[in-house]
């Protein structure tokens, strides 16, 4: 990654006022309307929750090293895995890429000064923080033990933990995500720079557009579902508990109507990150741009029609199950389209072996496994055996952690110079990508085997014959934890001691690389005029 003299010159000539040094002090941050500063606020807050969720995950893996329940009581264990899930899903994965990298980049990528509603953007962060505080109170005040799925009637009637508080926290976090989605949709529709047509938008923006649609259309449903749950638990309204005349399976329908699309909130943004990084790593236009763009929209739409695949053994109608199964198989198609197009982008590219490349390759490997194992679970005849086992746990971690967290970390490295104006040591970036990839596989691959052998999820104690694979998984988790701690260390170091970043360290295409590192408060000295397609590294050949 040689930095040419010209680059250095350019960044030294850049205006000295950027979004970071334009005002100091707590007030200038807490009352900011700058989407980039709000992105930084989000990075700090989701990192805290990631650490907390990771701590709970470590406790789970420690406990599962032995078949007996010897580290903590069953009640404690149930609370620990529940809080791991609730924190990771609602407070890390859903906001992870959109609220941080997306918040920072969407306006810059479309050539705008800010998001359409800067105050609403700040409001979304405050709503998130209040939700986070509520969640923390629920944890500190004794925890919650329902799993992140809050299944009734256990959650509404039988559980003796802080269900209402935790549900309230998830409910509020949902509003923060609705506000972010609203802001993105309006910005992408109305604030594109002159010449920035829909088909010149970077694929990162397309994937965030699709994500925002899910946030806007799906999140209100989980909000109302959690309200129904709180009413039943607090006031005995009979929605879900059969003793009160309710239907427990109804809750599952409502819950998954949001929470399955939400899985795509937790993967689509990382697909957008990958499209940007693949193009830069190969220095080549993304192969089949339109197909990659529309596959995001297809995933968002199909994602709304597959919720019943979580319920093949729940006693839902058999024929409904068939419809959910076939549509789930169809989701495989847009995912395959993306994977093949990324592969084809590398063909005859100019591939650089840097941190970004390591993350792209790691992501491809993990996403392949995560996506393909979805085929097992969409098969009704096989899901009977696999449902609620560790096979499912492994599958969704490959998607959410192997996919979204890999994408988040990769993206944070790729745009780190832009966000902070500093370079990180590339060798350490490659080491961290390798650690995450190896640690992740060692943690979660054994869980596929455990699942097929029949180990149910959410088990505090388990039969002896499952121990060897559980120990392997716990060992992997410690490598994975290292893989997350190392970047935390050298990225923090780079903020203070890292060399100054040039405007375009990777020689990549895109409006964000045309402005300074870090960008000025209003992103561009003058509104850019777009005259070419995305990723136009050279003259484009049609086939």
């Amino acid at each position, binding site marked *: 990654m040689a930095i040419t003299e010209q680059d250095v010159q350019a960044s030294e000539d850049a205006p000295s006022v950027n979004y970071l040094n334009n005002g100091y002090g707590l007030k200038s941050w807490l009352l900011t309307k700058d989407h980039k500063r709000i992105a930084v606020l989000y990075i700090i807050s989701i990192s805290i929750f990631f650490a907390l969720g990771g701590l709970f995950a470590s406790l789970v893996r420690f406990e599962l090293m032995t078949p007996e329940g010897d580290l903590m009581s*069953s009640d404690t264990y149930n609370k620990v895995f529940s809080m791991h899930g609730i924190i990771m899903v609602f407070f890390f994965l859903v906001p992870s890429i959109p609220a941080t990298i997306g918040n920072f980049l969407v306006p810059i990528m479309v050539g705008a000064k800010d998001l359409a509603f800067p105050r609403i953007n700040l409001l979304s962060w405050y709503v998130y923080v209040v939700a986070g505080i509520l969640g923390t109170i629920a944890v500190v005040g004794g925890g919650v033990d329902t799993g992140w799925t809050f*299944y009734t*009637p256990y959650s509404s009637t*039988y*559980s003796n933990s802080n269900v209402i508080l935790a549900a309230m926290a998830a409910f509020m976090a949902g509003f923060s995500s609705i506000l972010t989605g609203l802001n993105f949709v309006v910005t992408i529709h109305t604030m594109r720079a002159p010449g920035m047509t829909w088909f010149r938008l970077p694929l990162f923006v397309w994937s965030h557009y699709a994500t925002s649609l899910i946030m806007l259309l799906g999140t209100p449903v989980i909000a109302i579902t959690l309200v129904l749950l709180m009413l039943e638990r607090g006031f005995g309204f009979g929605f879900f508990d*059969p*003793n009160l005349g309710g*239907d*427990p399976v109804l809750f599952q329908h409502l819950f998954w109507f949001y929470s399955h699309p939400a899985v795509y909130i937790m993967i689509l943004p990382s697909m957008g990150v990958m499209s940007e990084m693949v193009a830069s790593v190969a220095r080549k*236009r993304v192969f*089949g*741009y*339109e*197909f990659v763009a529309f596959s995001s929209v297809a995933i968002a739409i199909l994602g709304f029609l597959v919720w019943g695949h979580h319920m093949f*053994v*729940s006693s839902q109608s058999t024929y409904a*199950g068939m419809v959910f*199964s076939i549509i789930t*198989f169809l989701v*495989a*198609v847009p995912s*395959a*389209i993306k994977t*093949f*197009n990324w592969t*084809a982008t*590398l*063909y005859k*590219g*100019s*591939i650089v*072996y840097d941190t970004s490349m390591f993350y792209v*390759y790691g992501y*491809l490997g993990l996403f*392949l496994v995560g996506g*393909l194992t979805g*085929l097992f679970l*969409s*098969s009704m*005849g*096989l899901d*009977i*055996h696999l*449902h*609620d086992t560790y096979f499912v746990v492994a599958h969704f971690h490959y998607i959410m952690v192997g996919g979204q967290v890999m994408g988040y970390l990769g993206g944070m490295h790729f745009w780190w110079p832009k966000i902070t104006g500093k370079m990180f040591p590339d060798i350490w970036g490659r080491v961290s990508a390798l650690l995450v990839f190896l640690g992740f596989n060692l943690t979660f691959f054994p869980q596929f085997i455990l699942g*097929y*052998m*029949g180990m*149910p*999820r959410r*088990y505090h*104690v388990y*039969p002896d*014959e499952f121990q060897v694979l559980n120990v392997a998984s716990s060992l992997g988790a410690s490598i994975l934890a290292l893989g997350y701690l190392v970047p935390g260390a050298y990225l923090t170091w780079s903020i203070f001691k890292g060399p100054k970043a040039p405007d375009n360290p990777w*020689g990549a295409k895109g409006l964000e690389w045309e402005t300074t590192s870090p960008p000025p408060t209003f992103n561009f000295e003058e509104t850019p005029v777009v005259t070419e397609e995305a990723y136009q*590294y050279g*003259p*484009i*050949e049609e*086939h």
Partner: protein
Amino acid sequence: MQTDFPLFPDQASSFALQVDALYFGILALCVFFALLVVILVVIFAIKYQRKSDDEVPRQIAGHLGLEIFWTAIPAVLALGVFVWATVLYFHLITPPPNAMEMYVVGKQWMWKLQHPEGKKEINELHVPLGESVRLTMTSEDVLHSFYIPAFRVKKDVVPGRYTDLWFKATQVGSYHLFCAEFCGTEHSRMIGTVHVLEPQDYEAWLTGGTANEPMEVAGERLFEQYACHTCHKMDGTGRGPSLAGLFGKTVALEGGGTALVDEAYIRESLLNPSAKVMAGYKPIMPTFKGQISEEGIIQLIAYIKSLKVPELTNME
């Protein structure tokens, strides 16, 4: 049961081989596509490594033929797997008509099982080798899920309704029974053992130990205890319909429509009698909700099932 470090579950039911065949079929498909992509990207990384900092490769926009190709192939393969898996699913959920009946009640945190002959078990289930067994299941409290990995069967056990599953054990031995749906504090201890016995051993087990009242006899006792027989007279002269030979029939309902008299219908009629009243009768039956346990309801069902078309005309 197995070695200390098994990597694959026992295959102890007639489903196991079929489910495993589907598993390996999909696995082969996945390995093929994963290797295809991995080999390609590794070759590309080696072959097209950046030579110099200012290198700019040829920009290829795309290729419509290729896009159609790699859209169509996964779509066709996915639909093929869908058909395979769905045909198997229908086999897995459709018990043969002559299956032995057994009953399961889940509660925090134990499995209560009962055989028609009356034998009751807790967290253990004895079944004969080579016989189709159908379980009718319900829960007293929260959701549970009845799971026997070695048989490849699982079904949620839902309060307020009946679910069922069936299997045919093909290998003598003892196998895990798990609760697969999170149900609270001792969820991971809501486990048990399924014992597959040779048919003669099963008969011996069934008749051994303390004498148990057969379920239909227990049901008959409840039928009299709750005074059901005062209205549901066997000769059809009572205020309620005669129940003899009724099970499995489709009956006309008051206000139109029909209903199949199955386990769920009888349960509903006990707990919410006015929901589906048989044509020609008045909605005068009181609810027995909260008065009869789930097990009692199941015994009543077993009794009603046993009532054949009457030769018993002289009951009064």
